[in-house]
């Protein structure tokens, strides 16, 4: 009887482990990594209006950063309900913030990418911190044109920091700012302790 009971307990534990593992996996998957890929109607209108303005840079489709072996497709994101910039649904993709300028246009274009994921399996911006001044970043757009950006500096912010410097720039120049996370994972807030922003400037030929 005791053996049977022990067997049942062990069998139940094993089966439970297999049954609940996916559920737990999805539970801990950060919510805002998958929920905000659909811009709300108001924002869409703004984008439609933007698209009417001419001339514009082509829509970005691919990001390449040879130094850290990044060669990835670009998703397009807007804002979360909290007013934060959205992030890609796929951890291996990066995402362009489509409410801002396109890479190569006047102002600060923004691209976000994940950091972390599972041990041993890299997210797209796991090595973003390795970029240093002078490193090059390439953006391919829908027309096949490649625009080159050069790293100027990196800055680290707390998650709710003033981000205006990231989004606002003076003058007529084009910039591309890459954003990801780093620091210590806070399981309650489902967030890392820092945001890493790599500031780049369009290469002047």
């Amino acid at each position: 009887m005791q053996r049977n009971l022990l067997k049942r307990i062990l069998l139940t534990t094993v089966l439970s482990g297999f049954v609940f593992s996916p559920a737990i996996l999805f539970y801990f998957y950060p919510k805002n990594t998958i929920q905000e890929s659909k811009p709300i109607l108001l924002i869409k209108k703004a984008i439609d209006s933007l698209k009417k303005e001419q001339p514009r840079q082509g829509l970005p489709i691919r990001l390449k950063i040879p130094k850290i072996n990044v060669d990835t497709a670009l998703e397009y994101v807007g804002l979360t309900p909290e007013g934060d910039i959205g992030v890609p649904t796929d951890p291996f993709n990066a995402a362009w913030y489509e409410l801002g300028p396109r890479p190569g246009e006047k102002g600060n274009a923004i691209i976000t990418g994940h950091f972390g994921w599972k041990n041993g399996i890299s997210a797209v911006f796991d090595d973003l911190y390795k970029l240093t001044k002078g490193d090059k970043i390439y953006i391919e757009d829908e027309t096949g044109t490649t625009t080159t950006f050069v790293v100027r500096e990196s800055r680290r912010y707390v998650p709710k920091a003033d981000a205006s410097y990231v989004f606002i720039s003076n003058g007529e120049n084009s910039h591309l700012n890459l954003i990801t996370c780093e620091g210590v994972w806070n399981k309650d807030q489902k967030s890392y302790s820092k945001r890493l922003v790599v500031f780049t400037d369009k290469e002047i030929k």
Partner: protein
Amino acid sequence: MFNKISVPMFAAVFALGFMGPIATFAATTPSLGVANTFGVLSSTFTVVTSTTVNGDVGYTVAGAPTTPPTVNGTIYPEDATWTNAGTAQGTALTNLNNQTCTYTFPDTAINLSTDTTHGTVGVYTPGVYCTRATRAASIGTAGITLTGSGTFIFIINGAFTSAPGAVVTLANGASSCDVFWAPTAATTLGANNTFVGTIIDDAGITVGANTTWTGRALAYGGTVTTDTDTITRACSVSAVASSGSSWATINVVKTVINDNGGTKKVSDFPLFVNGSSVISGMTNSFPAPAAAFTITETNDSNYARTFSGDCDINGQLNLNPGDNRFCIVTNNDIGAPLPVLPVPPLMALVKTANPLALPAGPGSVTYTYTLRNIGTVPVTDITIVGDTCSPIVLISGDTNGDGKLDLNETWVHTCQAKLTETHTNTAVATGWANGISTVDIASATVIVGKAIVPPLINITKVPTPFTLPVGGGMVTYVKTVTNPGTVALSNVRVTDNQCSPISYITGDTNGDSKLDSSETWMYTCRTNLMQTTTNTAVATGEANGMTARDFAIANVVVGIPGLPNTGIGGTSWWIIVLTGIAGLAFLFYRARRKQII
């Protein structure tokens, strides 16, 4: 009035071909405070025969004039105002004496009309001119000319005298309200003088017969003696000639946006033109033609700066003779977003001159400044700076007396000046609400000596909405162009540095393509804003061979997104632990099973 540009300094700059920042010792006009409205302030006021004072008069009871002067102002006989004016006189004198001499004369008594050491004989550009210790100064029969829109200070460490018939002439934008004489010994002006400026001299001021003086005799602790003279304290301004002149003007206008919790004000950003200090809203004269004037300011790393108006994005502009150029500098704070977006204020300043022309020659002009709130929030801390007219007096409009320009209020100010030449007067109004400033510029030209009516134009611009949530969106600007003058305007043009195309909607009721005084022309423009934006619209119109120009500056506040949450962490360890437990349990189960079998 507070012009600070030292022309000799610029001459040096050009000679050296060096356009970078340079040390500045520009003269500045001190505040006269309560004493500003006085034509004569004295302990004893002695009037020989008669005297007319267009301004307030103060004296002690014991020192009252036995021959009453004609006073077009208020008499303050040894009362609190008289005392306060005396204190203000002392403060102004201290200010003058503390200013750095831009030129010190040789160690001898100086005849300002014949001195050759300071520059062109008889001609003085803005600056602080000092005599050596105990050395007197005088104005000879040849008189002197004060040229340029700036402050002229004469620190005379001795007596000050003028010869009979001496004339002090203002030229190229010089204003009588920016001329100061500070002798340490007595002042004696000769008969039949035409004199200009404020004399502060407690050692006594004696004026010869039949002298016309545009300025003030301030001798709170001393005696003022006049004889058949006229003293007028209202400003007299000379024109900056529009043709054949080697001068042009630059007016740097500052606006500040604190939409992220900043607290800086206009005065926290000292402004410079080619390294020389200037004050927001004040018109400054410069030699022209000249290239690459650069506007700079004392930077604050917590504020982003943008240039608009006549400046390019780097704050640079070129000058041609007769130009009146405006450079608008916007500082937007960088900081954590506020929980609620602050609504920016907006107001409109309209300026008119009466009369618009003085065909018979020099005369008095009354400028009227009408200030309206065209935004959605009351405006506080309102200041109006007129470059060549002082004081600007609020006549009416603050109906509830709360000091705020409310939505339904129209504030009317006036200022009187005596013009000797054709002159364009500029006023800049600044107000605040919710940590954001609003500015408007208004200019009016008065023609002297010709029966030509100059054009006037006004533009206002109202954005809808004033604030946009995070991510930005569309804004519609409605621009309203009117003609406050009397002559119809042709070739009316409207441009905007942040919005195009601008569409004309309606207004030319008689279809003659001219903006008549009775017409209001409406334009709209739509654009997408992704960040807080200051945009500057410019309207121009032409009549009688002249072009009138006006600016409209509006802010729209846009929320800033938060940084993305790009982290994917914490799941892997849970999965490893869980899988490990499950795996161990399975192995244990298999082992036990084998034992059973």
